[in-house]
């Protein structure tokens, strides 16, 4: 079974050289620190920067330079700042090739729910609805089950949706799964996790091929 860093490491393998990538808050943010050697990708943060760098040293902290999680960051050489309308033109206009984000639920149709739990406080969707409506490739990073042990991979989402038929791939603490033709397809299993474990933790329909390789982390 993977921890959050393990999930981020597996997601880092999804990065393609020469692409622009938007990382959501939480596990996806960890991916920025795990870019494979020799891989050149540029991170977009929707509040208005391309070429986001690591956290600053104490001396370099700048209140005017933050990421979408409102954390202080740095800008790499070649970075550019832009306004919010231009930022979402990049996203909606499909200039950002990969979006990685967290989820509360994903359905086998590729629907995603990650912004609202009825009866509980609603904080808002931020940029998530724009991101999932437009990125060419959407990878979800999440735990396979919620804190009550219930599956987050469902035949249909029970929570209010963030987007429909948009998720292509899911990386969890147990497995890598693809969403295709209205079902989940098991692609890889995490180290030490059996196909049965994954089947037991997946509420939606799951297609299991004859051979399920273990993730190479």
């Amino acid at each position: 079974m993977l921890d959050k860093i393990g999930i981020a490491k597996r997601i880092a393998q999804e990065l393609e050289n020469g692409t622009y990538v938007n990382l959501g808050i939480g596990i996806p943010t960890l991916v920025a620190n795990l870019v494979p050697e020799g891989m050149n990708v540029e991170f977009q943060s929707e509040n208005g920067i391309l070429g986001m760098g690591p956290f600053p040293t104490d001396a370099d902290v700048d209140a005017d330079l933050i990421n979408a999680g409102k954390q202080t960051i740095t800008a790499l050489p070649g970075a550019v700042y832009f306004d919010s309308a231009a930022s979402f033109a990049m996203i909606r206009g499909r200039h950002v090739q990969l979006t990685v984000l967290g989820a509360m639920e994903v359905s086998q149709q590729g629907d995603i729910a990650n912004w609202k739990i009825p009866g509980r406080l609603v904080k808002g969707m931020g940029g998530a609805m724009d991101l999932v409506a437009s990125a060419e490739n959407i990878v979800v990073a999440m735990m396979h089950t919620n804190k009550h042990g219930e599956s987050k991979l469902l035949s249909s989402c029970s929570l209010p949706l963030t987007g429909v038929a948009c998720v292509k791939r899911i990386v969890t603490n147990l497995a890598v799964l693809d969403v295709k033709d209205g079902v989940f397809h098991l692609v890889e299993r995490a180290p030490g996790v059996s196909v049965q474990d994954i089947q037991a933790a997946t509420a939606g329909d799951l297609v299991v091929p004859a051979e399920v390789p273990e993730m190479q982390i």
Partner: protein
Amino acid sequence: MALDKTVRDVQAACRGIEDGMTVMLGGFGLCGIPECSIGELARTGVKDLTCISNNAGVDDFGLGLLLKTRQIKKMIASYVGENDEFERQMLSGELDVDLIPQGSLAERCRAGGAGIPAFFTPAGYGTEIAEGKEVREFDGKPHILESALTADFAIVKAWKGDTAGNLIYKATARNFNPAMATAGRITIAEVEELVPVGELDPGQIHTPGIFVQRIFQGAQYERRIEQRTVAPASNESKG
């Protein structure tokens, strides 16, 4: 000759903002918010405001100051997570809240300032945000109709500005400010440094002064940080 948009101070800049008006405020989190003008609105006690801003500040800074004094009737935002008083007022029904996808919020402001009354976007299709909105397919993909946003006053914060109202923002403090600057019937710009015309490079200006009616240099800026994240000085790759 360049028009002069300067006003003496924040009091003069905020004159005319009255009860019940709609006010747009730039910023993302606490980054790039017009903190001097927000302080002035808190001082005047103007109330029943509809505020359009990506976020709602924190309890004791940004729009949180106006929430604490119940000056906001309705909040139009994309994310409002960092404010306990906001949660309390929202749950008790004292505060009306309209949550909008962040890209749609930015584009609605941009459209409002650009004379585009509405536009189709894929964001939010199939979600509760789409309820009651016209859906149309383009290239086989469904889109929803979103309308433009304008405001009685737009208040933006820039790093530098000149007396003609031309503005330059710093780093990610730009965010919603340029789009909102275009969408106010009166746009107020507060700047950290106000310079005479001719000092800014015309090719480097982000917001042309035509969109700005009033400009002043803020007396002081706290520029508060919401999430201070640092890497150890000895290890640059960490982060």
